[in-house]
Every structure is written in structure tokens, then in C-alpha cells.
């Protein structure tokens, strides 16, 4: 489904991604771990098309189609979803309006009719329950004054609404209390399906108790330096990143 070949990207002339190779098949869940500053968020943002990053070489395809020459919104409409590590606030724009605009943009792309306000309200209430967010949050400004955990749940709610083909979750587990971690994990597990790929950035192997990944990769210095199964995360937790021959930045 997602195929990344020798991807190089830089920001402000500084190379951050130095040759990423990754294949994700439909139905698979891949976890990416790695020290702070190793390029995990950069990879996520580059896949989603953030123009702040410049792709200097490499190839990325989604279901055989070149992603890199698509605008951000086209990628989104073609099924790429990014749950942000730091969701931004849009004061004054209600969550409900924002979500409906997004859902209708996707529907338009598929040649479907707009969803009317009443229909959408019903759907939005359902998914907000699924992530244990009070429907009152739908009326508030996008992420406006949301707590860290509420922002993360709001991101997962959007994934559930938009039903992407590829969901990239950038540290959706950080800053969550134990109950919220359960809620968010349940949400992600609900997203798991045979025709969807999930790429999940995390620092904590405890998340992987809830969402059992098919593969775990270690990203360090802009490269994937080790890949393995579920057990790699356990090993990392026990030994840190030091044994892989890189400086252990994550644990200080």
C-alpha cells in the first residue's frame, strides 16, 4: 500500500531524513520508535505534504500512485491522514464546522453529495462518544483551549470520521492518562482493518500492549536502523537505544 524508497528530506538546508525505506501492506500496523530529534515527525509531515520540508530525493507511492507530486489536500483526499503530535488551534472555527467541511471535501472528491447538518451532527456525536469526548467539544473552536489529552482524542475522532487509507499517528499516546490511553487505543484498534495501513510513532512500548503492531522500526539519525516484530519494542524498553550503537537521547 505505502512504499517509501530512499527518501531524503531537509528543512532549511539541513538534511533530516537520510534515506528512508519502508513498505507497509494493507491491514498492517507499523510502529516507529527512536530518540528525540531523529526525524519521526519529519517523516510524518513529509508524507502528509508539509511544504516546510523539502524532499531532495526518493520516491513515495500510495497504492502505486506517486504521492510526492500531490498537494497536501489531494493526498488527504486520496486517503492520507496525519494525527498531529502538536495539534494547532483555530480560534472561532467550531470543531463541528471544521469537521463537516473536511468530510464534505472528501465526499466531493468521491463525487458524493454534501452531508447535511443534521446527518453530520448525528455522525459526529457517535464518533465523539467513541473517543469519550463530550459532544460539547464539537461546538468549541478547533482545539481551542483543549487539554493535551483532549487534543489527542480529537485527532483520533477525526481519523474515525474521515476513514483514511493510511493513518499516520504521531505520538498520539503521549500526554494521555491511563484511561485516555485505553480510549485512544480502542479508537486506533477500531481503525484497524484489512484495507487500511497504520503508521504509528511512539516512545512507549506500553501503547503497543494495547495496539499490537505487526512491525517495529527504529528511526535514528534520519535512517531506519533496525526493524523487527513486537518484541523489538520490549527489547528497546529494557536496553534503551544505546545497544543499537546510538546515543540514548530518549531516556534523558
Amino acid at each position, binding site marked *: 500500500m505505502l512504499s517509501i524508497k530512499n527518501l531524503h528530506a531537509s528543512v532549511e538546508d539541513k538534511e533530516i531524513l537520510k534515506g528512508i525505506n519502508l513498505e507497509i501492506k494493507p491491514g498492517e500496523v507499523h510502529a516507529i520508535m527512536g530518540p528525540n530529534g531523529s526525524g519521526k515527525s519529519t517523516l510524518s*509531515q513529509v508524507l*502528509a*505534504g*508539509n*511544504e*516546510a520540508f523539502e524532499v531532495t530525493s526518493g520516491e513515495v507511492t500510495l497504492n502505486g500512485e506517486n504521492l510526492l507530486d500531490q*498537494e*497536501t*489536500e489531494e493526498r*488527504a*483526499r486520496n486517503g*492520507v*491522514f*496525519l494525527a*498531529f503530535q502538536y*495539534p*494547532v488551534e*483555530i*480560534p*472561532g*472555527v*467550531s470543531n463541528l*464546522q*471544521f469537521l463537516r*467541511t*473536511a468530510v464534505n*471535501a*472528501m465526499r466531493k*472528491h468521491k463525487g458524493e453529495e454534501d452531508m447535511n447538518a443534521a446527518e453530520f451532527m448525528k455522525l459526529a456525536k457517535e464518533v465523539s462518544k467513541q473517543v469519550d469526548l463530550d459532544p460539547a467539544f464539537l461546538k468549541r*473552536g*478547533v482545539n481551542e483551549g483543549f487539554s493535551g489529552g483532549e487534543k489527542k482524542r480529537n485527532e483520533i475522532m*477525526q481519523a474515525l470520521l*474521515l476513514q483514511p487509507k493510511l493513518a499516520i499517528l504521531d505520538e498520539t499516546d503521549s500526554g494521555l492518562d491511563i484511561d485516555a490511553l485505553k480510549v485512544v487505543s480502542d479508537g486506533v484498534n477500531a481503525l484497524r482493518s484489512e484495507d487500511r495501513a497504520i503508521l504509528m510513532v511512539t516512545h512507549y512500548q506500553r501503547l503497543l500492549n494495547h495496539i499490537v503492531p505487526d512491525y517495529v522500526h527504529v528511526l535514528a539519525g534520519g535512517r531506519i536502523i533496525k526493524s523487527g516484530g513486537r518484541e523489538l519494542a520490549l527489547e528497546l524498553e529494557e536496553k534503551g537505544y544505546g545497544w543499537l550503537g546510538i546515543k540514548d537521547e530518549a531516556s534523558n
Partner: protein
Amino acid sequence: MATTDNEVKELIKREYEHGFVTEIESETFEPGLNEDVIARLSAIKKEPEWMLEWRLKAYRRWLEMDEPDWAHVGYPKVDYNSISYYSAPKRKEDMPQSLDEVDPELLKTYEKLGIPLHEREKLAGVAVDAVFDSVSVATTFKEPLAKAGVIFCSISEAVHDYPELVKKYLGTVVPQGDNFFAALNSAVFSDGTFVYIPKGVRCPMELSTYFRINAANTGQFERTLIIAEEGSYVSYLEGCTAPMRDENQLHAAVVELVALDDAQIKYSTVQNWYPGDEEGKGGIYNFVTKRGACIGKNSKISWTQVETGSAVTWKYPSCVLRGDNSVGEFYSVALTHNFQQADTGTKMIHLGKNTTSTIISKGISAGKSSNAYRGLVKFGPGAEGARNFTQCDSLLIGDRCGAHTFPYIESKNKSAIVEHEATTSKVSDEQMFLCRQRGIDPEQAVSMIVNGFCKEVFKELPMEFAVEAGKLLEVSLEGSVG
């Protein structure tokens, strides 16, 4: 992450929808201004002697005044002798007696503008007065209004039919010598709207006027006078458009509102005069004096304005809060782009006890435009327990535009309280990226963010017009993202 100019690049290429010219026969004065011109104008309108005297007095004041240059705007000086002070569609008869008699070309113009002139096509419950260049063309819904005792007519008609009311109130809120443009308007005002709501009457429908400048090299100097008697209520809306022309055109209006005891006036404006092209050529100079006097106790005047047009705007709808417990409100959205300049704000003059005022100003600047808020809050010695709340927010799109805030506070009463909040923000790349990542078009994203920014003001507009205002912003922002 990235800089805003990456995402929200050029603010250009907006199409002005209302830029057509109507081919109709009209009678237009030669450019130039002197006492003879004023006398001719007055004669054409068959005005009584007192009206002409009033005009001439204003003209003489004006001759002695200097054009103000303190506003945060720059424009080439206007040559007042190159302007024509009267232009009217020529009519076969004296005045059209009903809509059927109105020139079909004119009606078509209003149709193009989306103005529902014909009763059957009209927005339910909105009475419309349409001012085309210098004259009032048609006033709809006269009958049901008359039944309620409401007078809604052109100011010229009012001078003939209700001279006592006009004499009593004209120039009491905005005196002839108030400022340069008000003096000019008092001398040469051509038409405008007159509204009178009798005691205890709640006006049964929204009243509205559409202004349109059509002829070239003409100025529009309309004059509006609204009087709300004791315990009455009225909601009034004005909309404005003009054709695209390379020359700048002058619009210098005066609006006076008078609210007696327990009366309420809600005055909304959607101003979309031609703003000039993307190089800054042409456009309307909009120099307007709008003021309301809450002379009665517990009276209330609310100004709501959405200003997206004009090359240069100079406008401060104000409230003089004379009656005890009276309330003044000012809700404003001012959007500038390309080379537009706006210097707008309000004055809240607290004279009576426990008077309160609220100012919510939202300025949006894009392109190379400049947008200034200028507000005066003044408490007289008698303003015991008076309060003001001011909130001034600016939103920048791109990084070649400017926003400025000039708040002035003068207090002669120690018990008066002022609260002032001000913010400046930008449409950030992160916000744009979030919207686009969710599949939303960049232009739709900007418009959604801007509409969100203006929400507090839009909710003050009558329903239909809130929708219209939202759409107007969308059109005005077209081409604002690269």
C-alpha cells in the same frame, strides 16, 4: 514551522462582481461646486426655502474648513471642482408612482446586484429603498409600514412631506460644521433615507437601503436620518456597490440616528464599494460620518458594519450616550486587501449616568493593504458608573500588510470603568496545513478561518445578511492564497 508567506502568498486577482455600468439616460450636472450649483440642486428637488438656506450655510462653513489629514490613510487630494454634484436617471414623468413605472434598465441593475426590489421577489419582510447615484428610486413596502405608522421614504420626500420632523432633527446629531466631509454633505446632499418610528412601535420588518454609484465623475452624498420615538424599535440595513472605474470616486455620506427614551436602533452596514484594482487604481473614497444620539434614558444604538470595499475608508460610527442607562454598541469587521486603506473605528461619548458601551472590532488585512482601528471612549463629568468594554483584534494574511490600533480614552469621571483588550494574529502555516491535511481547499480554509475570526460580529447581523457577509468575505479573499 514555515513562514506564512509560503502558504498564504499573494492577495490579488479578485474579481469585483458589481463592476458593471448601467446604460441609462441620466441628467448630470457639469462638474464644479459653488452657490449656484447648490441653488440648482435645491431647485431641481423643489426644496422649500429653508432647506436651501440650510445648505448654503453649510457650504459657507465648508469653504472655511480644511480637509483632515490625520487618518492613517494616504490618497491624492480630491479636486472638489472636478466632481459632479448631481446625477439622476432621467425620468419621463416627474416621479415614478409605482415600481412598474421605474426604468426597466434600473430594475435590471438592481436585479444584477441581487437586490430584491419587486415586492414578489423580495426577501420576506425586508423593505427596500434604493438610491441610484443621487436619487432615491423606489421604496417598497410603503403600505404595511404606513399602517404601523412607520415613515420610510427618501429624505427628499421627507423634506416635502414631513418638514417639521426634518427641521427638528436634521443636523442635531452631526452638526453642519462637525467636520469637513459632513459640511460638504450638508451643502450638497442629494438623497438618502428618512425613517421615523412612532412611540411604542416595533417596526414590523427590517428596513434596508441599497446605494449604488453608477455615473462617472459623480460624488454620492447621501443623507440618512432615523428617528426612533419613545419605546420604539427598528433594525435598518444598508448595502453599497459601485461600478469599476479607473478614477477614484467620492462618497461622503452623513447618517444621523436619534433614539428617545427606551428606544432601540440597530443599524447594520454591508459596504462593498469598488475597492480599486490589484494595482491600486480606481476605487471609491468612502468618507462617512455616522453618529447616533441616545438622547432618551434606557435607549440603545447598535452599529454593526462589514466593510470590505472602497479604496480608502474613513469612518467612525459613533454613539453619544446622553440618556441615563443608555447603551452604545459597535461591532465591526473591516477587511482590506491589495492597496486598500481603511481607518475606521468608533467614538463612544458617555454623558449620562450608568451608560455602557461595547466595542468589538475585527480588522483583517491582506495583500499590501493597511487597516487601522481608531477608537475614542470619552466619559463626561456626569457619567457616573459608566463603563466601556473594547476588544480590538487584528488578523494578518501574508506579511506585506499592516494593522494599527489607536485607542484614545478621555475620562472626566473617576467612577467610569474601561476595559480594553487587543490581539494581533496571523493565519498561520500550521493552521493552513491542518485544514489542507483534512482535505480542505486552501481558499476555503482561509475563508473559514477569517469567518471564525469574525463570528462575534456576524452574529449581530440579521440572519440573511450574516450569510451574505460571510459570502462577501469569501469573494473578497479570492486569490489570497498562493
